[in-house]
Every structure is written in structure tokens, then in C-alpha cells.
């Protein structure tokens, strides 16, 4: 159980930092405009789908081997998400919110809901195909269409703290789907094992190519002598396995995935960057001035429209970063209006509120806190996973409406 909890902790840290990135967008906009940008989570979804579409497009048109993607693919995909989300964030503010700067709150709220609905549903329209498979079936359309898709791998799945127990020659057994190893192996109870197989295979043009793949062992724990036939999934034929080498890899009790490390590193550096931007730059002090008092700020010669636009773009770019990282961890992409996205956005929003909306550090704290509540709660009783988060939201709003780090604001009469 201890290991299980540690595993949940690693997920919490990874997903928590993504929540924090999205929550920062809510908080930044709230800071300067004092309203909740309902469409923010949809900007995040847009980022995820932009990442998908760019990746698929580049893979299909640039002849990239999708099994071994080059490093620059990830970079281009990331940039595309940043540009699209930043641009859309700018447009939302410029054309939907700016005309309502002096309107009653309710109107702004309704507009925000409208923008959110618009992004969701435009995304679901099936547009012209921009990438096809070799067989000619459409892989990606723009807009994205209403069917779920799977994000191509941009990064090989690597568990950083996996250990190699044995190496050697493998061969196929008598039947399809079994592997015979050249030495005795012992599999302990409660551990994950896999065989990393390296083998040669002829392509359609006849040339031999090296294939690296991972087979999991479909056998119980115990000691197996050299020459025992071990069942695997996926199943490989004896021909495929001839001349193959293997590495028996033992999964750690608490796996640390490369992607999780990348998520945490990228998120933390963005957060540090944001902190520097807010407290060390001219634009940052303009943002802080605006969040204190818009009228005074504009009297002091701050171009409020520019600062507000900048804030929107900044928030959108942070959401785009999260949106680029998220499908690398969870590659299943649901259509843009799917409820799962709304829930995701809501969790990030709750994170912002719990931390104290308008407070940058609060958003980060809230992100981790909400992820912890969600994942540890799910561990306790999975079906109520989403209910926990809302229960926390309601409790916080009732008993500490300004969040954990927020300051109390008195309404002026």
C-alpha cells in the first residue's frame, strides 16, 4: 500500500503541475479584469487538439517515422500550440470581452459562456482533411471533427528508474506467442516485468530494419529455467523472434516516467518565469498595478488595453503549454465539446479558487492540492473522483471565499 500511495503521489505531482499551469491563466485574467474567463479551459482543449493536428500533419507530410519521432517534432508541435492558443486568446479578449469592459458582470459572464460554447462546438465540426494515412484514410481534419483521436507519440515511453535483470538471446518457441530465453529468470510477486526485444525485420522494400519493442510477460511470478517457454503479449511468431536479443526489465515499485519528469520540469520553469515576469519586468508591474486598480493604473499612463491583451495571451500560452504536455501523458483525445474537458477545466478553475483567485502562488498551490484530492480521493473511492473536487470548491467558497492565499476584499458601498 505504501508503494501504491507513492505512485499516486507521482501522478499527483505531474497532473498537479498541469492543473497549476491552467489555473494560472484563470488567476491572471481574474487579477486584471476581475472576472472568470470561462473560455480558458477551451483554449486549453484547443491547444491539445492543435498539438495533435500539427503532429499528425507533420508525420504524414514530412515522412517521419512515427515510431522514432525526431526531437524537433515535439518543438514544432509545442510552438504551434503556443501560437494558436496565444492568437485565439488575444482574439477572444479583443472581440468578445473588450467591448463589454464596462458592462454588468452578468453580461460578461454570459459572453464568456458563449465564447466557451463557440470554441467547443467549432472544434467539433469536421473540416477539410489535412493529413491522410498511406492508405488515404483521413487522419486529421481542420476543424477537428467529432470523433476521439489518439495523440501520436512524440516521446518514447521511458520509465527512468527501471532496472535490467538479464540480457541475452531470445528465440521463438514451438508455438506463436511464446519466447524462450537463454538463462534462468526469477519473477517476484507484485512487480512489473517486460522484455525489451531488439530484432531485425524486412520492410516492404526488402531492406532489413531494426525493430525495438516491448513485450510484457503473461506468466505468474516464480523461477523459470533457461529454455522455458514464456507467454507474452503482444504475441510474436518464431520467425519474428529468430536472432532477437532481449533485456529483461524489472519495473520499479514506484515508476517515474520520463514524461512526468518533463511535465514537472517544464511547468516549474514556466512558473518561475512567470514569477520573474510579474515581479521583475515593466509589464509585470503594469499587470500588478492593473490588478490593484484599473482606473488609477490608466491614469498613471499604463496602456490598459495592451496590458490586458498581454495577460490574456500569457494565460493562453500557459494553457497551451499544459495542453501540449497533457496528451503526451494521456494520449486519448476526446472531441472538443466532450464533458471530460469541461471537468478538466473546472478542476483547474477550482484550483485557482482554492488557492485564492488572483493570486499567482495560490494557483500553483491549488493545482497540486486539487490533484492530490482528486487522485487520493479516487484511490479511496473511484466513482466519486469528480465529486470530491466540487465538494472542496463548495467548502472553500463557503468558509474561506478568498481562497487559501487570497486577501479579503470589502465591497465598496
Amino acid at each position, binding site marked *: 500500500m505504501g508503494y501504491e500511495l507513492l505512485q499516486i503521489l507521482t501522478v499527483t505531482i505531474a497532473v498537479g503541475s498541469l492543473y497549476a499551469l491552467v489555473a494560472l491563466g484563470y488567476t491572471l485574467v481574474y487579477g486584471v479584469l476581475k472576472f*472568470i474567463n470561462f473560455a480558458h479551459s477551451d483554449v486549453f482543449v484547443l491547444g491539445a487538439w492543435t498539438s495533435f493536428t500539427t503532429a499528425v500533419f507533420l508525420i504524414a507530410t514530412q515522412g517521419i517515422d512515427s515510431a522514432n519521432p525526431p526531437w524537433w517534432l515535439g518543438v514544432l508541435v509545442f510552438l504551434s500550440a503556443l501560437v494558436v492558443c496565444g492568437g485565439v486568446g488575444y482574439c477572444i479578449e479583443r472581440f468578445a470581452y473588450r467591448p463589454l469592459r464596462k458592462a454588468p458582470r452578468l453580461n460578461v459572464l454570459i459572453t464568456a459562456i458563449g465564447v466557451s460554447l463557440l470554441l467547443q462546438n467549432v472544434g467539433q465540426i469536421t473540416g477539410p482533411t489535412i493529413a491522410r494515412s498511406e492508405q488515404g484514410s483521413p487522419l486529421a481534419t481542420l476543424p477537428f471533427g467529432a470523433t476521439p483521436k489518439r495523440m501520436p507519440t512524440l516521446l518514447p515511453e521511458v520509465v527512468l528508474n527501471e532496472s535490467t535483470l538479464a540480457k541475452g538471446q531470445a528465440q521463438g518457441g514451438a508455438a506463436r506467442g511464446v519466447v524462450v530465453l537463454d538463462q534462468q529468470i526469477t519473477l517476484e510477486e507484485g512487480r512489473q516485468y517486460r522484455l525489451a526485444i531488439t530484432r531485425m525485420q524486412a520492410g516492404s522494400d526488402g531492406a532489413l530494419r531494426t525493430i525495438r519493442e516491448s513485450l510484457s510477460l503473461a506468466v505468474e511470478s516464480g523461477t523459470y529455467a533457461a529454455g522455458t517457454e514464456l507467454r507474452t503479449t503482444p504475441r510474436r511468431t518464431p520467425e519474428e523472434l529468430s536472432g532477437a536479443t532481449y533485456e529483461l526489465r524489472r519495473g520499479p515499485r514506484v515508476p517515474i516516467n520520463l514524461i512526468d519528469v518533463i511535465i514537472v520540469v517544464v511547468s516549474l520553469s514556466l512558473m518561475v518565469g512567470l514569477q520573474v515576469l510579474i515581479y521583475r519586468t515593466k509589464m509585470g508591474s503594469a499587470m500588478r498595478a492593473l490588478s490593484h486598480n484599473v482606473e488609477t493604473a490608466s491614469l498613471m499612463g499604463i496602456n490598459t488595453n495592451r496590458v490586458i491583451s498581454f495577460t490574456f495571451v500569457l494565460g493562453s500560452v500557459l494553457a497551451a503549454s499544459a495542453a501540449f504536455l497533457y496528451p503526451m501523458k494521456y494520449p486519448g483525445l476526446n472531441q472538443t465539446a466532450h464533458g471530460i474537458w469541461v471537468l478538466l477545466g473546472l478542476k483547474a478553475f477550482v484550483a485557482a479558487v482554492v488557492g485564492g483567485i488572483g493570486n499567482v502562488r495560490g494557483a500553483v498551490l491549488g493545482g497540486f492540492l486539487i490533484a492530490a484530492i482528486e487522485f487520493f480521493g479516487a484511490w479511496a473511492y473511484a466513482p466519486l473522483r469528480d465529486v470530491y473536487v466540487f465538494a472542496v470548491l463548495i467548502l472553500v467558497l463557503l468558509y474561506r471565499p478568498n481562497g487559501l492565499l487570497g486577501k479579503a476584499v470589502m465591497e465598496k458601498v
Partner: protein
Amino acid sequence: MKTLAQHTKDVPASRAFRPAVVFLPWVACVAVAFAVQLVAPALFDDYWVNVLRRVGVFVIAAVSLNIVNGITGQFSMGHAGFMAIGSYIGASTTYTGSLLLHGSVGDDSFAVQGTMLMLGGLVAGACAAAGAGYLVGLPSLRLRGDYLAIVTLGFGEIIRVLLELTSKQVDTADGARANPFAAFFSFNGPTGFFGTPAYASNFWIWLFVAITCVVAYRLKRSSSGRAFLSIREDEIAARAMGIDLTKYKVRAFVLAAAFGGVAGALFSHTGVNPSPTDAGFQRSFDIIIMVVLGGLGSISGSVLAAILLVLLPEMLRGLQEYRLVLYAVLLIVMMLVRPQGLFGVKEVWDLWGAKRKARGGTP
């Protein structure tokens, strides 16, 4: 100057009771119900008669949401949650009730009793939804606009999750008799609740449409309605005028939820199987759009908008994919161009009534 209490005592009896004003609207309700029931089949084919039932349900939903979102100005985004509660409780009352009393569901010989069960289900659904409305209304006292919107959105989602957790529907009389209570609340999880007979004819639906409109309109044009409106206009001034925000906000939520529950209960008796996704925000958004389009605070505006927005997609079948895009654009453009909605807080007839003399009392 006389106090209000003295003034009230001095109002002559002749002015205190005018039978026509008091009773005619109820008569009109029944008349409307009969009219729709009898005239619709003569004019349209079965498909459109059925669409008309859907229209009615959404009119009730929109008018009830208008009580809280429009008149009281508390932006709730969880109305579908209340509807779903009404839907399930109503459907289960008829379904489980039929099993217990008759042994099977939907028999022609049981239709009259079945309809009675449905009416009981409407009341039960309305009460359950009202209870939920009370629970949601309470935090609304301490939450400002956008927070309230999020909390109510979360409420709808919680209802959805809870409905998904319910156990498998009990579909035999023996099963129901073994444990009626458990059977009643076995809502069949994510797949939705099946087999409720379509007892809600246009008569019943439009009867409740008319009743909802009369109640909502009478509320709006009354001291309570003014209190609701004052909260929407300025909470601080309302408090200073002695209006108990707690009481009126909760009242608005409970009333809206109750009628939302009625809408839901009727809906589940039109041959539509209630499912947990009905509680989600998509449905709530649909109703919000109706209220905003018609005008926040305008009862007749909500009625017209609901009719329009249910019929429109039916007429533009080929454009299903673009329906919600269109709604979204409508919502944004509305806020930019005419933020108060088509009719604002006014009623349709106020527009050609010119400027009548001071009114604001009873109609």
C-alpha cells in the same frame, strides 16, 4: 402618514377581490391545454405533435430558470440537474408504481391509474428538485455571480455522477415488491432509465406550461417579484430596504427548481428515457440560451425563445452540426448588441401597450 398596515386595512373589499382577475387565468390554463391537445393533431402529423410536447417541456424549463437567472439575477448553470432529478423521480414513480400496483408497466387497462401515478410523480419530482434547489440556494447567499455559476455547474455534474452510480433498474413486479424503496431508486446507472410509458400528452404538458407561466407572471408582478428583481438590481440597496436576501434567494432557487423538476418529470413521460448526461451542463446551456435570448426577466420572452430554439433545429435538420455553433454566436452577438435579450425585463405585450399609466401592482 398612514402606515402600510393601516392602509391595507382601509382598502375596500370591492377592490380586494375581483373574481375575473383571480380565476380567469386558471380557466385559460385549462383552455390552452385542451386547445393544444385537440387542435395539434388536426394541423400536424404525429412527428410534429410529438415535437410540440418537447417544446412544452422546454418552455417550462426556460420560464422556471428565468425566475432565478432572470428575475432574481442569480446565474444558475445547473438547471438541467434539477430537471434530471424531476425526470428520474417522476419516471420511477410511474414505473415502479405500476409494477407494484399493477404488476406490469404501460398496460392500456392501467392507463388512467398510470396517469394519476404520473401526476403523483410530478409532485414528487417537483418536491425532490425543490429540496435540491434549497441545498443549492443556500451557498448562493455567500457567492458572487461567477462563483455561483461554477458551483451550480458543479452541482449538475455531481447529480450526473451520482445518477451514474445508481444500481440496475428493477423491471419485475416481484423484484419491486421485494424491496420497493431500493427499486424506486434503482435508476439504472449510466445507461439511463427505460420503459416509462408516454403518459404526458400535449394536454398535460401544455396545462403545466400555462400554469407555470401564470405562476411565474403573478410572482413577477407581486411584492415577492419586486423583491426578486431588487436583488438582481442591487443587493446592497435591497438589504437596506429590509429585504431578506437569504429568504428570497432561496425562494427563487426552490421555485425554479420545483418547476424545473416538473419539466423533467413531464419530459420523462414523453417517450424519452432519462439518462445521467441529461443532468450535465450541455442541457443547462440549452436552457440558459433560451432565457438569455428571450430576455432576462421576461416570462413571455422565455416562452417565445424556448419555442423558437426547439423548433429551429427541427426545421434545420441538415445543420445539426452547426446548431450549437449558431447558439454560441447568438449568445455572444446578443451580449454585444442587445445585452438585455429580445425583451429585456419587459413582457411582449408591454411593447405595444405604449406607456400605460403607473402599474406595478396586480395585473
